[in-house]
């Protein structure tokens, strides 16, 4: 079967790839484009380790077919830092030990950024429910939730506004 030609934008860069119709976006990111920061923990959309945004929408890339990226804007963990400057969430996760093994961390960061783009003043409960699609087996979530709440407060204090969604 002929491969499908996909033209897309990944972390701001125009990108083209060839894929099979049944290939997932996660497989293309990891195996063809070398973007291995997105992880496969389950392949069924239950763990969130493969979280990316497609046109601003938070998705499990293991549940997105690669051809669906046609014309879309895909953001992965690899695009989160600004050059050599870590995103405040990335910095805070390290500072507050919000990771232990680190396998779920890219997914949590992508999901947390998506939350703060919509809601810069989340309650603890809102953070917990927003991140309920991301499994972490090491931390008990405590320091992750604290880190997100701290970053939200710091961004509010710095005058950052929610992106229009």
């Amino acid at each position, binding site marked *: 079967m002929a491969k499908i030609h996909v033209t897309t934008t990944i972390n701001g860069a125009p990108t083209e790839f060839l894929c099979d119709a049944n290939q997932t976006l996660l497989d293309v990111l*990891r195996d063809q484009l070398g*973007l*291995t*920061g*997105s*992880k*496969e*923990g*389950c*392949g*069924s959309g*239950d*763990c969130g*380790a493969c979280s990316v945004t497609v046109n601003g929408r938070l998705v499990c890339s293991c549940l997105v077919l690669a051809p669906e990226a046609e014309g879309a804007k895909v953001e*992965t*963990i*690899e695009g*989160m*830092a600004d050059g050599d400057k*870590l995103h405040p969430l*990335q*910095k805070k*996760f*390290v*500072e*507050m*030990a919000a*990771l*232990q*093994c*680190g*396998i*779920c*961390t*890219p997914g949590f*960061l992508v999901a947390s950024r998506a939350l703060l783009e919509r809601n810069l003043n989340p309650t*603890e*409960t809102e*953070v*917990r*429910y927003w*991140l*309920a*699609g*991301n*499994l*972490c*087996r*090491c*931390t*008990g*979530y*405590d*320091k*992750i*939730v*604290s880190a997100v709440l701290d970053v939200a407060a710091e961004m509010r204090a710095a005058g950052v506004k929610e992106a229009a969604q």
Partner: protein
Amino acid sequence: MSKPQYKWIGTRPDRPDGADKVTGRARFGADFNLPGQLVGKVLRSPHAHARIRSIDTSAAEALPGVKAVVTAADFPEQADLIVPTGEMQVNLRDITRNIMAREKALYEGHAVAAVAATSEAIAKQALGLIKVDYEVLPHVIDVAEAMKPDAPILHESLRTEGANPPATTASNIAKRIEFKKGDTAAGFAQAEVVIERDYSTQAVHQGYIEPHAALASASEDGQVQLWSTTQGHFQVRGFCSRLLNIETSQIRVTATEIGGGFGGKTVVYLEPVAIRLSQKSGKPVKMVMSREEVFRASGPAPGGNVKVKIGATKDGRIVAAECTVEMQAGAFPGSPVGPACMCSYACYDIDNIHIVGFDVVSNRPKVAAYRAPGAPISAWAVESTIDILAQRLSMDPIDLRLMNAAKKGTKTAYGVTFNTIGMVETLEAVKNSDHYKTPVKPGYARGVAAGFWFNVGADSSAAAHVGEDGTVTVISGNPDIGGSRASLALMAAEELGVDYNKVRPVIADTASIGFNFVTGGSRVTFATGLAVVNSVRDLIRELKVRAAKIWNVDPEGVMWENGVAKPAGSNVGEFEPLSIAQLAAQAGRTGGPINGHAQLNVTGAGPGFGVHVADLKVDSDTGVVTVGRYTAAQDVGTAIHPSYVEGQLQGGAVQGIGWALNEEYIYNTKGKLENPGFLDYRMPVASDLPMIETILVEVPNPTHPYGVRGVGEVPIVPPTAAIGNAIARATGIRMTDLPMSPPKLSEALDTATPRMAAE
């Protein structure tokens, strides 16, 4: 005793691998690739128990793109020999059968063949072309059923070890063990209150988010390179060496970053298979398990049945205690029934104890270690029973435990007498905590439970190298599973008297540092930490020798303080202090590179005790439990990097909450696992939980220079009973079977309070 003043120990700097892990740069098991690699896939048994009459791989081998197919015939037979792995023991004869079924498939998901092909699609197609002729046999899943004389037998050669009289016929009971202290009959005769209960738990999975993965490259000259996500790359090397008859020096294993293990990555599944496929195909072979494979075929932790009998006087003194543990081993002998028995009453100073354990095989995947292996199962039963005792005696559960707490000098049922431990301090810390002093909120109830783990030492090697600019690389060989690099660097910086950021910790492959036992048993910060401290001390000795040469004095006349060499006294002479950078700059003239080394078999691991408090409410309609407040307290020795110590307590507590409320392996009547995915195997998510408060009780371990105790395992021991005890106090219903999931709890509530027909 006043607390020692440290510059680095006890601080919370950024971890050395932090930036890599928040940017996606860190490379885990499945992130490694080699040019020309093949994809390896495993064919697994669809039956719980079946004789393998024959395997025909010819059609698969003929498929274009298939480069190798292996079955058990490709792996040499192994002797009946037990070798240690992590906190468990494995028999090589069994382990070769576990990685590839030989005479029989012993559980659904058991590997029976594997292929390597040029693409995943071809590999999957090839699996479908392998013809296995199975003779399906009767199976047994439940431990109690498996122990019956007429149960289907898994291993015809298995005789119960420790049976009295000696066993003469085949049985699924692999072993009977016994621990005795004092005279329980005499003890129960003194008792004024006796509580007796039966409990059960189900198999649970470690639930690491990263599936098993391995990449093997075997060369034509016999050398093998392997990248594996493992808790012990030296163990992986050892297993592969034995299972494939390859000399250890021919195998070089690199531990990738590891995405969780909790004990489950201390054994091998894919690694020997990937190597064999690579040898046969002449190409690198990469194998990654799916989540379903992880559930069906990698070691869960066992479930078990526990019978407990505790006798006490009316004032709360426990005078006799008995416990019988029947534990799932999975398809091959080797459950953690030993530690389950030993830990059962280790929190308490009891004169008369009798404990019996049974290791039982059944048609389930072979169990692997999971955080304090075995201990949560006996603790669930013992700590629930102690809570019943507290209720019966109308005593505060902390006071009851304080009255019976183990302390320095307490002799355990398994023979060890405790040195300095912190059970009493931990109970007191909880009693004085804000949580415990705050009245329970209306609608909620509070449960308390304690837990114990030995912690282990064992073999570690480390090296410390000075770079030409005076910065230091500290090299060790334990995969960092939860921030251990930061702890090792903190101890090295403290010892050297230099900035934490001048010390770079590295985890070397098996060819680049001496042997290190697995990352497990809560041993790395303690034992490998000690090796690191000793390697730095060896380095300091060398630095003093170099300073002595420069000053032309005796090395004895040089002291090391705050990162510089100084004259030890005024009689040595007047010299300006020399920093590591200054000594490094002159190294070429004083003897060449400046390094330190250490290797040791570490003993004296300080045991740990935890006490947890849970406040929760139960929805009487649905049986859903909401945990409102949770505190985990533990004697942690010295918290080297307190954030990661807190993280261990929080993570372990939450795994225990999952074990208590939801997690279980569910089998159907055909012996097939019905919930091999995260949707149906329900681990806690963020919205299920409150913040997990921690209390770090620092009772230094006297056998470690910085007082380190292992901390990682104790936190999973108390939660099931803490939750169960709170549920009992909230509802009046004492749950004895885990998990206390909504369907089970709501059924128990309905039975206790029959609903109106109209509802």
